[in-house]
């Protein structure tokens, strides 16, 4: 992989130059939290961000969008309006989240909406330092090898920039003058030192090996009822998790005529109607079953299917659930410790 150096003072000039590719987004403050917001003004960029409320998935599968417009029985896919965007400041765990979404949406029956958005979205990663809710080291998602176009590693005065894709290479070429190509041994040294220092910063450890078996053994455990009783069925956990992809579909009609849109919006298995079939039978009637499904899917299904859990250690669920049902409390309870 190609690695380049970019002096920190040159970051904004570089980002500015990316406007020729598309709209620029990055972490901005929203009250006491952060979101990926549009950077019409780069001054808004706030790199103190640790986690945004919604993950980058919001750009690739927006909370609500039209898949088709229709007129009579003729459907027209709405793929043209997808804008080109640069997302700067995406942390490693999130890039791992994207890799999971890629598997999910692009293998077996590729999803054209995801595909098109992924193609039009340049992912510019950024290294981070964990807080007490991050545990990406436990999930092995604290470093990235792929899934990004450029990845910025922040050191003292400069960034080491990994070029991860051909698009990334094109983006670098927009302002090659700002980058330095020869990485000195000193730089490498600094990077390695930073790496091990960062490794030592993970306070939260959540060992997820053997989760499928542990889930299996807990199939009838009373912990599910305990969590189920507390669960608000608010769905927030699914909305904020970088790897939750479920959605609902509905058709919007106009009051007159026979045209309209087929719309897709985020749904959650934590909601009661999620598994209702015609005739009213609900395969997951009570909350305990629904909480169990959420965690089974994260911690067992994905491991069986893709060899690793669908949790990337971002800590969003820990930061979001009002009643403290999250990967940390659930895994801890499952292990009975």
């Amino acid at each position, binding site marked *: 992989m190609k690695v380049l150096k970019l002096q920190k003072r040159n970051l904004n000039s570089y980002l500015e130059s990316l406007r020729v590719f598309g709209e620029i987004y990055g972490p901005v403050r*929203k*009250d*006491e*939290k952060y*979101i990926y917001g549009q950077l019409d003004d780069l001054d808004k960029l706030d790199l103190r961000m640790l986690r*945004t*409320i*919604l993950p980058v998935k919001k750009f690739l599968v927006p*909370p*609500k969008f039209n898949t088709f417009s229709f007129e009579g029985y003729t459907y027209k896919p709405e793929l043209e309006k997808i804008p080109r965007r640069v997302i700067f400041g995406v942390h490693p765990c999130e890039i791992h989240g994207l890799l999971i979404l890629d598997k999910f949406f692009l293998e077996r029956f590729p999803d054209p909406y995801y595909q098109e958005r992924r193609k039009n979205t340049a992912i510019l990663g950024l290294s981070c330092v964990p807080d007490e809710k991050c545990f990406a080291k436990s999930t092995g998602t604290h470093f990235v090898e792929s899934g990004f176009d450029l990845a910025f590693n922040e050191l003292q005065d400069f960034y080491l920039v990994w070029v991860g894709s051909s698009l990334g290479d094109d983006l670098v070429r927009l302002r090659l003058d700002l980058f330095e190509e020869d990485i000195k041994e000193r730089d490498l040294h600094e990077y390695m030192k930073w790496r091990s220092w960062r490794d030592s910063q993970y306070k939260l450890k959540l060992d997820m090996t053997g989760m499928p078996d542990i889930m299996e053994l807990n199939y009838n455990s009373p912990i599910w009822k305990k969590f189920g*009783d*507390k*669960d*608000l*069925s*608010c*769905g*927030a956990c699914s*909305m*904020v998790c970088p790897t939750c992809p479920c959605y609902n579909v*509905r058709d*919007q*009609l*106009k*009051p*007159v005529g026979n045209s*309209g849109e087929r719309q897709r919006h*985020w749904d*959650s298995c934590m*909601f*009661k*109607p999620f598994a209702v079939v015609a005739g009213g039978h609900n395969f997951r009637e009570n*909350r305990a079953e629904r909480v169990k499904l959420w965690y089974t899917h994260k911690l067992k299904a994905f491991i069986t299917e893709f060899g690793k859990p669908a949790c990337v250690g971002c800590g969003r669920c820990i930061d*979001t659930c*009002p*009643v403290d049902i999250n990967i940390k409390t659930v895994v801890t309870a499952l292990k009975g410790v």
Partner: protein
Amino acid sequence: MPEKPKAGFYNLSGCSGCLLTILNCEDQILDIFNGANIVSFLMANSANIEKDLDIAFIDGSVTTDEQEEFVKELRARTKKIVCLGVCSCYGGVQAMEYEKNTWSARFKKVYGTKPPTITKPFESRPVDAFVPVDYYLPGCPIDANQFLYNYARLLRGLPVDIPKTPVCLECKWRENECLLLKNIMCLGPVTATGCNARCPSVNLPCVGCFGPADEGNLTSEFNLLKEKGFSFPEIERKLRMFGGVKFVNKFKTMWKKVKK
């Protein structure tokens, strides 16, 4: 082209906000009037014909004997009755003291000992306390987009489709920091969504103006709020504000339990 369905828009005791919301759909108002054969809309039209209807939209709750008669008469000549807003769905803010037996005293306080004789008033109740209702579109007022979506469905004979999920869903879509985590009493988790999470999106807690969400976990919300130091009367007061009769009926037993 099948004949346009005959529709009527009616207003009982309320603020007329739901009918106003319809008139506020400036971009669609011509379509709204063209999509159906609107035979009655007293608030906007003076040539109203009261006859058999395919769809009747009702805004406002029932608070007088005259209105009670009216909804019965309307039911008899209408195929589908759609309640618009928490007044007609659940009794509205005017029903927040429902079943507390304070109505007569309060009425006296407002009208004194010589009340008007024109109608016989009573405590506000929703339309379905008197006649069966086919569909409910809650909100105080209703949400314009939810109305337009369902209006288009109703005109084609499709049932009303509203989310059963709580406000938090749309609140997260709008990327708001959760107010509960800031120890602010937000009713989002137990309130039906459809409002686009307007209040949390301006940093204010959800006041519950779409009424109780069918699938909200009230016991858990209550315990959570209690842990955060809110008192029982405070919590009940908020829940009653827009939840009205539905709140009282739906959660009566549960509420007695948590009270203990």
